[in-house]
């Protein structure tokens, strides 16, 4: 059998071999609660502190204390949206988010509507770029928090975050940026970009799953979502996930170190993949043609459905993603693909390929052939 090709790094990243090596350096029998003051506790504290510095370094945060560790980007997004809105509700009860945010941003924002907040979704254009005029109109002096992701995981589009930050700050609001898919892939600099809160995923940096981080600009007030002990400045109570946090830190360091070379390498593979796939009849790129993540290629194919594309590709040894309704838990069409103006039937035929360290340019011809074969096979069955 031919070797498998993994093209769903947006769903789950393999742990970077350097992170595995780093993790193995922890001695057998390693224990230590960072809240204790004896030797083992101090070793654990040190490990968390180093990780904080490394994550801060990746996103250009000058104060490591501005990073808190969480269980992942979903929790970071929840704390950022819910905690910021609730803590600053005196200013107003308006929340603004782009229409294509991840559900872990949209759902806490929708949930806050039950507590009297209003939510306005800022539209995006057909490439998925947030409409800055519409955003400017949506954000008012009563808007407590505006959430616009750095880049989208389904269509790869990178947002003009600095312009977004200017709009939000002009109106005196706070900007939360879900940087899950962007960090480690393109330069993210919270200070240069004017970001007040930024969510990060450990796994998306090449670290383990089940750990994430939230950058909170010093001075920004956030209310805890979970309450318990006072860990992570009271915002993430519970004994720290020391081993995973340490590994996430190392992943952040490695991601930053490898970013220039790896983004250039992946961009070249991505471009030849896009060129090959869009040669196929009625195959279209989704998302922005140039302002997109270097590892991200996303498509739609007319008259066929995404889950069957995914299954057929799997049978050919290739793992890809789809925004198809049939693969979602809710069986609803992707809100991202609908927001960029696709009709429901068009949104069903999507395929997403996200590249990683193991992918090589040599794989592109086999991937393109497999997509051709899959599309041909499914179009032979379709009544449309």
């Amino acid at each position, binding site marked *: 059998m031919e070797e498998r090709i993994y093209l769903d790094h947006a769903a789950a990243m393999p742990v970077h071999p350097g992170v595995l090596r780093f993790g193995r350096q922890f001695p057998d029998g390693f224990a230590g609660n960072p809240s204790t003051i004896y030797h083992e506790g101090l070793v654990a504290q040190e490990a968390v502190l180093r990780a904080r510095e490394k994550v801060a370094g990746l996103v250009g945060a000058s104060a490591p204390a501005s990073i808190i560790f969480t269980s992942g980007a979903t929790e970071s997004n929840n704390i950022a949206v819910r905690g910021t809105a609730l803590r600053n509700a005196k200013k107003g009860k308006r929340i603004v988010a782009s229409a294509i945010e991840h559900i872990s941003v949209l759902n806490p924002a929708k949930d806050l509507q039950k507590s009297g907040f209003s939510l306005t979704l800022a539209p995006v254009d057909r490439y998925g770029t947030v409409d800055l005029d519409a955003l400017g109109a949506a954000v008012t002096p009563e808007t407590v928090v505006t959430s616009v992701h750095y880049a989208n995981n389904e269509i790869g589009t990178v947002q003009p975050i600095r312009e977004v930050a200017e709009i939000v700050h002009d109106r005196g609001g706070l900007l939360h940026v879900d940087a899950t898919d962007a960090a480690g892939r393109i330069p993210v600099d919270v200070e240069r970009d004017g970001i007040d809160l930024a969510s990060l995923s450990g796994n998306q940096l090449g670290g383990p799953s089940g750990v994430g981080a939230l950058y909170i600009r010093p001075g920004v007030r956030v209310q805890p979502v979970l309450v318990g002990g006072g860990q992570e400045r009271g915002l993430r109570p519970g004994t720290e996930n020391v081993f995973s946090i340490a590994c996430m830190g190392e992943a952040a360091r490695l991601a930053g170190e490898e970013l220039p070379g790896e983004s250039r390498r992946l961009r070249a593979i991505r471009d030849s993949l896009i060129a090959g796939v869009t040669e196929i009849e009625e195959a279209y790129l989704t998302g922005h043609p140039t302002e997109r993540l270097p590892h991200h290629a996303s498509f739609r194919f007319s*008259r*066929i*459905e995404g*889950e*069957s594309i995914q*299954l*057929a590709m799997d*049978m050919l040894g290739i793992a890809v993603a789809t925004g*198809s*309704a*049939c*693969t979602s*838990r809710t*069986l609803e*069409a992707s809100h991202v693909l609908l927001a960029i103006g696709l*009709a*429901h*039937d068009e949104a*069903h035929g999507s395929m997403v390929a996200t590249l990683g360290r193991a992918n090589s340019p040599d794989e592109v011809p086999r991937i393109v052939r497999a997509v051709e074969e899959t599309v041909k096979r499914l179009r*032979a*069955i*379709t*009544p*449309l």
Partner: protein
Amino acid sequence: MADQIGYSQKVMEHFMNPHNVGVIENPDGYGKVGNPVCGDLMEIFIRVRENVIEDIRFRTFGCGSAIATSSMVTDLAKGKTLEEAMKITRDDVATELEGLPPRKMHCSNLAADALHAAIQDYRDKQKKG
């Protein structure tokens, strides 16, 4: 079946090599159910001789289980009398496919519905004579 991981072997066989794909020109019965907006659309064509489904073809836009259930329902109906074919249910289709993930059960519903619609269409035409 609730703990089944992924699709059964049988579903994948039918998905990769579906049986009875295509159209019948001037069919005796034609059934179409679903909607591309919902992500599933299937049509079934039947040729009937002496109350028996002599030939049956399908075309489907949809997910893996939509394609596999279409293929399976055509296998189940072929050679059956119309009365027997009308009795084929979504559960029969799912059982023959060695189970479907719970949230996919609506797709197999469609395949049996399309078959029943094709038989109904045949009967309506007969009545009009």
